[in-house]
């Protein structure tokens, strides 16, 4: 197997539960490359929620916390506060982050706490069999929108920007080089970094959702949509003006004579 992959993966847990062609494996590789490139392996821990994307870090040979649906950001906040000098990475999905985890997402952005969040957006609830998510496009037919979705989809990047995240980017699994770079920059950013990755769930999404069934075809579609401007990709914010949460707390205590330890 790939040597870098082998050095980071708990090989005894393979084969992974990802379906053939699932985008999660591509994102996992991009994350491994970013972590390895930055050299932060010993000082990094991962936290994830529930869903297929939340299994990404479970295969990594690091300290990993696989928590409950929607609450990864809350666990990660506690972990970061207990070990402020370490890096904490969060893997979440469109349902985990925008539906049940919406409130924690808003507050983590507003707090601007130093976390690096990779939100895997496959526009569907894959793990549970293909139900609609808050990101599912209007009119899409899913298991819980058999007549076509009637909701305006929620844009996680716009939310993150509005709430004050200091690094916001969106790429797709068809852009692995840019994705790796974005994760790298997110890890380096001292503040809340939100990287949304448009991904594919060929089994549950498939033709109904992406218009294509084959993983390679979905990837091609993403590249075309990006070129046509149907989806906006790129780095939307890299803002060093807003102070990070723990920095603010430390400063606040220091000015009143208390030293943070």
């Amino acid at each position: 197997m790939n040597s870098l992959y082998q050095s980071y993966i708990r090989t005894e847990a393979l084969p992974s539960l990802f379906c053939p062609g699932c985008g999660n494996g591509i994102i996992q590789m991009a994350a491994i490359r970013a972590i390895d490139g930055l050299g932060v392996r010993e000082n990094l821990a991962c936290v994830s929620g529930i869903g297929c994307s939340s299994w990404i870090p479970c295969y990594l040979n690091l300290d990993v916390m696989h928590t409950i649906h929607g609450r990864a950001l809350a666990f990660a906040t506690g972990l970061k506060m207990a070990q402020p000098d370490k890096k904490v990475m969060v893997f979440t999905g469109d349902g985990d982050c925008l539906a049940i985890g919406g409130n924690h997402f808003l507050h983590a952005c507003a707090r601007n706490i130093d976390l690096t969040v990779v939100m895997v957006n496959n526009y569907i609830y894959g793990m549970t069999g293909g139900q609609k998510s808050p990101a599912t496009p209007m009119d899409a037919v899913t298991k819980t929108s058999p007549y076509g979705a009637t909701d305006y989809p929620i844009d996680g990047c716009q939310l993150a920007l509005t709430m004050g995240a200091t690094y916001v980017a969106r790429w797709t699994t068809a852009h692995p080089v840019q994705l790796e770079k974005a994760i790298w920059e997110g890890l380096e950013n001292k503040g809340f970094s939100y990287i949304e990755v448009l991904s594919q769930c060929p089994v549950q999404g498939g033709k109904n959702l992406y218009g294509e069934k084959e993983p390679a075809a979905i990837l091609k579609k993403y590249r075309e949509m990006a070129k046509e401007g149907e989806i906006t990709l790129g780095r939307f914010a890299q803002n060093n003006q807003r102070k990070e949460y723990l920095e603010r707390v430390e400063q606040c205590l220091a000015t009143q004579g208390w030293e943070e330890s």
Partner: protein
Amino acid sequence: MSNIVYNDIIHLTKESKLIELHPFEILDERKQSMDFINLAEEKEEIPRKEPVKMVLQGNEACAKGAIHAGCRFFAGYPITPSTEIIELLAKEMQQVGGAFIQMEDEIASACAIIGARWGGKKAMTATSGPGFTLMQEALGYGVVTETPIVIVNIQRGGPSTGQPTMSSQHDIYQARYGSHGDYQIIVLAPSSVQEMYDFTRKAFVLSERYRTPVILLGDEVVGHMREKIVIEDTQVDENPLKPLSAGSPTTDFFQGGNSLVEGQLHDEEGHRIGHLPQKSGEFLNKLDEKILRNIDEITHINTYFMEDAEVAIVAYGSVARPALNAIKMARGVKDDRISTKFKIVKDVITKGVPQTLQTDYSHLKVGLIKINTVWPFPEEALKRLTEKVDLILVPEMNVGKYCREIQRVVRKVKVVSMPKSGGELPSPRELLDRIISEVGVKPEVREDE
């Protein structure tokens, strides 16, 4: 090892001298002579080895207990009647080098403390009924991942918004069975400010030893009352007992352990086994046995006047206070501290103030079994303690929940439930009158009627 403390003070009779008998305090002359420390003047927590005496509110004592137990992370959300805990720790946690955060809701608070504990910092949160309900999922996660945390529930009247400022014991079953799934849990029920302090410290010790969340089940009465307490020492225990585990990873993060903390049923590596029935069953059994096998070490019960008791009151939490006063009334324990003060205004005093000079209940041989570790349910201990008793009365500020456990276990003795809803503590007279009506002896006519 027996954790049953026998507080029988049988040598006291009506003729004996005034003794300042604080509820639940073991007599110790040394404590009588110390100076008070005014909490407001204390700027810094200096770890002390000598005992200090101070006047504190129950919630404040709980917060102090947490700090002295080594808690260095608190995440919470304000809710009456637990708010004083978060407020005190907002100030003091950061002063001792810990971290404090007010999260966006109780769910996030419960999650954050689990995250912090894996980051190596002892962690606690405090809430009341509505918040406790929200925390159940995270509590289950703490149980299955074997994370040591402390959750404080200062009970108020429920259900739902219920009675925000009134006490209750409604959540006794929720503390045990609130989360979905099969699990054991340790729950402590303090009855005084001293116990709010002591039991909080104990909760941390138990949570680390058994690698489990521990619930401190207080209530509004104990949370908001002010009493004098003695703090023996403010040092964290340097030699804790070895932690027990059912097989989950135990290494904190960033120690090179590459721990995989997993909410699904898992093996020692953290890999999921939920799809394997036999392994899953074994793991669940191990989780249960971790606590049940050690029930003797965990159980903590105080008894008062049980040596020759024919009637036992089994109580927990703040209800144990009027229960003890009832015992004192019946046994003729002189309590001039109360009666001398109120001598002049005797007519104005409402029912419930113990009049200890000549009680109508002196013929009753009553004792109190005060259960401090309400869960795991101390089956064997209760059976033993009630062997020679003819009647058990179980007063509770709920519809009679814990009584069902006692009835289930104690078969040879008549167990009478005494529920009280609405938020008022039962008075000592109410308890004694009920005993008399059960026992079948009419009370003598009282002078004031």
